[in-house]
């Protein structure tokens, strides 16, 4: 479309303008005549085989790396919900756990299978616990968590919106059912330091839980749910609560309890002294304690790596089968384009 031989710059400008106009006209023409330049991919055998091969070539290494990463993570999982009930109460676990007069301490001994590098994350895992139940998820008041008693519409928190005629802060079923087992870790008679700060999302601490909001009238009802909170600590620092209030997606979930910031050596034996307060016995939920290191992919889970390897290798198999079939009976379509009678 370039116009040559323009004597003056004005001429050039005119020419350019015309060429722009005519180009616009051309594009418009192509548009209305449905004749726009287009890429028309056709799935030719070479394309198909290349795509599948390429997928395999990319996926299998990713899978292997992922798998390796997952294997490098060391994880100790210890179920304690049954062990921590004395033999004599095992027939009626629910009444044991509900009996507030009994001190429910319990000890576990964990053996470290391999050297675990700090930081080692401590999780508690609950199974068959529906934190994603609609009633449960909705039973909170974000305004109250941020602004405290200034926000007084707590209808979404029912029935745990108030007790003794006064509103509770924090209100709702989630807060009320706060997990309250506690753990102490002792290695060779010295207590391991557990860092319980910064276990919640920063955005939650800074923007969802108020710095000036203190627990009030909490866990004061006739029916005590889970743990109680220190009324002198603002909600934004109650990290256990913040972690708990990020509802889990699935009925089996882990929540972070804290971090051990020193390495554990292989064959170390760690004694865990725990208070088994939380009632999962009513609904048959399991409780587990998890110690895990972390990689760039997070915790231990082979699924991603296996899936990558599987998808990658199946694409390679498909591409090979396809190639074989294609070579065996070369295409001839002209003969097929006829009336399907």
């Amino acid at each position: 479309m370039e116009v040559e031989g323009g004597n003056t710059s004005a001429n050039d400008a005119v020419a350019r303008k015309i060429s722009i106009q005519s180009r616009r006209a051309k594009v418009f023409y192509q548009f209305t005549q449905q004749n726009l330049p287009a890429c028309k991919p056709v799935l030719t055998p070479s394309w198909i085989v290349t795509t599948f091969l390429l997928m395999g070539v990319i996926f299998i290494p990713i899978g292997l790396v992922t798998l390796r990463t997952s294997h490098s993570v060391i994880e100790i999982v210890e179920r304690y919900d049954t062990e921590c009930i004395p033999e004599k109460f095992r027939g009626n676990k629910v009444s044991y756990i509900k009996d507030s007069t009994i001190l429910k301490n319990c000890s576990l001994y964990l053996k470290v299978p391999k050297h675990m590098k700090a930081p080692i994350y401590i999780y508690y895992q609950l199974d068959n616990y529906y934190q994603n139940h609609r009633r449960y998820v909705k039973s909170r008041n974000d305004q109250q968590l941020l602004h405290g008693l200034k926000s007084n519409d707590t209808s979404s928190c029912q029935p745990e919106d108030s007790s003794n005629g006064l509103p509770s802060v924090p209100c709702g079923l989630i807060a009320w059912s706060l997990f309250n087992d506690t753990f102490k870790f002792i290695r060779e008679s010295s207590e391991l330091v557990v860092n319980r700060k910064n276990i919640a999302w920063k955005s939650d601490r800074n923007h969802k839980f108020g710095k000036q909001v203190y627990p009030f009238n909490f866990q004061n009802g006739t029916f005590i749910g889970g743990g109680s909170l220190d009324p002198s600590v603002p909600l934004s620092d109650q990290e256990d609560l913040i972690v708990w209030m990020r509802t889990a997606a699935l009925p089996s979930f882990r929540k972070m309890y804290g971090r051990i910031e020193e390495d554990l050596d292989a064959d170390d034996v760690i004694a865990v002294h725990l208070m088994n307060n939380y009632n999962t016995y009513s609904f048959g939920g399991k409780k587990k304690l998890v110690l895990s290191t972390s990689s760039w992919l997070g915790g231990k889970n082979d699924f991603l790596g296996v899936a990558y390897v599987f998808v990658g290798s199946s694409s390679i198999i498909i591409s090979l089968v396809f190639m074989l079939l294609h070579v065996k009976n070369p295409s001839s379509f002209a003969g097929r384009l006829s009336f399907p009678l």
Partner: protein
Amino acid sequence: MHEDSNFQNFKAIIRCEDPNANLYTFVGSLELEEQQYPLTPQQLLLRDSKLRNTDCIYGAVIFTGRDTKVFQNSTGPPSKRSKVERRMDKIIYFLFGILVLMSFIGSIFFGIATREDLQDGKMKRWYLRPDDTTAYYDPKRAAVAAVLHFLTALMLYGYLIPISLYVSIEIVKILQSIFINQDLHMYYEETDKPARARTSNLNEELGQVDTILSDKTGTLTCNSMEFIKCSIAGTSYGRGVTEVERAMARRKGSPLEEEVTEEQEDKASIKGFNFEDERIMNGSWDNEPHADVIQKFLRLLATCHTALPEVDEENGKISYEAESPDEAAFVIAARELGFEFYERTQTSISVHELDPVTGTKVERSYSLLNVLEFSSSRKRMSVIVRSEEGTLLLLSKGADSVMFERLAENGREFEEQTKEHINEYADAGLRTLILAYRELDEKEYIQFNEEFTEAKNSVSADREELAEEIAEKIEKNLILLGATAVEDKLQNGVPECIDKLAQAGIKLWVLTGDKMETAINIGFACSLLRQGMRQVIISSETPESKTLEKSEDKSAAAAALKASVLHQLIRGKELLDSSNESLGPLALIIDGKSLTYALEDDVKDLFLELAIGCASVICCRSSPKQKALVTRLVKTKTSSTTLAIGDGANDVGMLQEADIGVGISGVEGMQAVMSSDIAIAQFRFLERLLLVHGHWCYRRISSMICYFFYKNIAFGFTLFFFEAYASFSGQPVYNDWFLSLYNVFFTSLPVIALGVFDQDVSARFCLKFPLLYQEGVQNILFSWTRILGWALNGVANAAIIFFFCIHAMKQQAFRKGGEVIGLEILGTTMYTCVVWVVNCQMALSVTYFTYIQHLFIWGGITFWYIFLLAYGAMDPYISTTAYKVFIEACAPAPSFWLITLLVLMSSLLPYFTYSAIQMRFFPLHHQMIQWFRSDGQTDDPEFCQMVRQRSLRPTTVGYTARFEASSRDLKAKIEDSL
């Protein structure tokens, strides 16, 4: 009575039939001064008639408004919806069924779980406080909770129902209509008329047309006759080329013929005359071997007619007014060949004749003694004239069927050659007439004249027959002069268009009000009929039926007629059943009166069966009502899509009744256009309208609907699967805004782009491989298996997305910092996967990537991330669970991206594998053409020839098929002779 005032005291009584829909019959009588005058259709003017050749008429109005025959023929304006849309409704019901089923299953599980929460006063899931709850979760009234949950679930899974589909389809269809309107290939420059889609409802229906019902005059033909050839004294004259021959020549690729056609176009300036032969033009016929015969032939043309000359005062040029355009063509031909008819009085006809000896024009006057008029049963007309020399001449012209038997022994000199010629002409779709004459001796004439006058003046009812009988006596022992061939001029490009449509497997039925002969001629001209087709003619114009009609007992006559029609139909059906391919296909030709009986309830199935079995169907003498009834019969009984095309008011019923009515915005007013769904300027545009736009629109809409279902199912099922892990409590896994915006922002534009722009193959290939059209006719792209396939793909994708996500993000930490996933992170990850998967699925199914597609598809995905960022940056009061979820939690986690990639690829894998296998081993038509294109085979003429031959079935009409058939016959003949 030639003054208005004379009618002041005019008193007469008209008795006539009740209002009815028969246009071609009328029974009535006029009682004037105690005398009865019969009233016939000839005395009747229909509503909307136009006066020609006269300034005014005097008449009486007998029916008005709704009682008029024309109105009785009209049908109410219909509301039309396309088949695809009707099927879409069914899919919506189906989806609704699934929705109810899913909700029902969920409710049952929820009910059970809720009931078990509180047993004997003991709480199971105490954290839900089942002891102190609302009706929604009350374990004591679990049934109520389940019912309430059912309603919640209906709302939640409601994303399964693509409500935005209807809106999107409307948008897409309007844009498609704009494309149809804008198409320059369907723009007719001469009248400045583009195609106009008057309703956007039926775009995709254009891609599924199985039967076209076409009007003839004004649609296929331009309603002008051209004198094109003649055979005189056994020699064929005229180098004019008919449209069909031109098309056939182009098909053969003969360069010689091409030249001729080009010349043709330059010279064809005289309306009604398209004759080119230097041997007899400009008086050079004198040098031909049978000059005397040629002279007589031309003289006959100039005298034997009922036309009126009209002399233009200014330049002395003469034009003619004739009852029918073919008669005008004859006189024009005579004029152009040197025999200029210029004056008619009651008793004489005057002609300027070219004298072969002197080469000057001589005025000759013939005294006109008798005119033996044309009638459909006589199929001939004659005049008896006395020339200036005093010889008495009977000049006669008529159809070959009646003329050859009337030749004298000594008049058959050229019979063989002439017969051969007229067969040739008829095959080319020309209307032929045989010209013959005889000299009468005085005595014979006087006797005839007496008898004839007596018969004419008789008052008995069978006056006409009497006259005919007497005329027949004198019209014998004729001497053959030759034959004429007149072309009923087809519109531009009609044979090509019909050929393409036939190759596309579309049936073309011609419904015309014309006479049977004309209709058959046009059948030949359009290549709807060809030599070697066996014609099944069902007619009530036979002599027996004539006599039946005359009989007193009308109902008995009707019954007998019906029986005769039935009998003919059964015979045709037997022929159809017994026919094997070697005998050639059948063609059904039926006239209006027979059609009346054939359309009665007990016969119509038989009629339809026969008609469908025939390669072509021509209904002649049919009234508008019958056209509409035939259309309805085809539409309802075969449940195939019908398209009616017509240009006149008499086609309105048909246009409204058919699934699609296409109006030709031609010369005959706007009525057809006003009641049509799509208006085009020329019949030939139908080819592009159907094969290109129809096919595209059908493909686009059906892919679009399939895709829509797919994407909503994929989305809806992820919600459902999650419910199974949330004890069916009705908690959505996604943020509310994600839910609402799914159909609006992240997935809507690509699907609209698909509906508006996608092309499986370009317009050029659509036209080159008309067989592609069958995809629409057989509804391959919108079959239930395909729809279910897409639905299954949706379910499979939802399963892959959900289960891969929850297994990859189990309880363990999902990033370096040891954080575990929450509901909102799982939701965001799954949603990201859904957006990627459905958009990339779109990219896989699109076959035509313009930058618009790229923009919409990749833009949709990008927009999702932008939205996540923007929404996540808002105050948590607004963004709730999505607050900073992307920037803080997901984006820094490599596993989030790895999961997205894995889920995306594994979701696409099934579809990709499926389409790879299909493309390679079981390709559909459009896929084969894509192959050809990528292989470069499409430009190989031999290859195209082969493909074309494959698309022909024995019943295919059109000139390509005709060419193939004739070459096949030729081959067979040669083999026989060997």
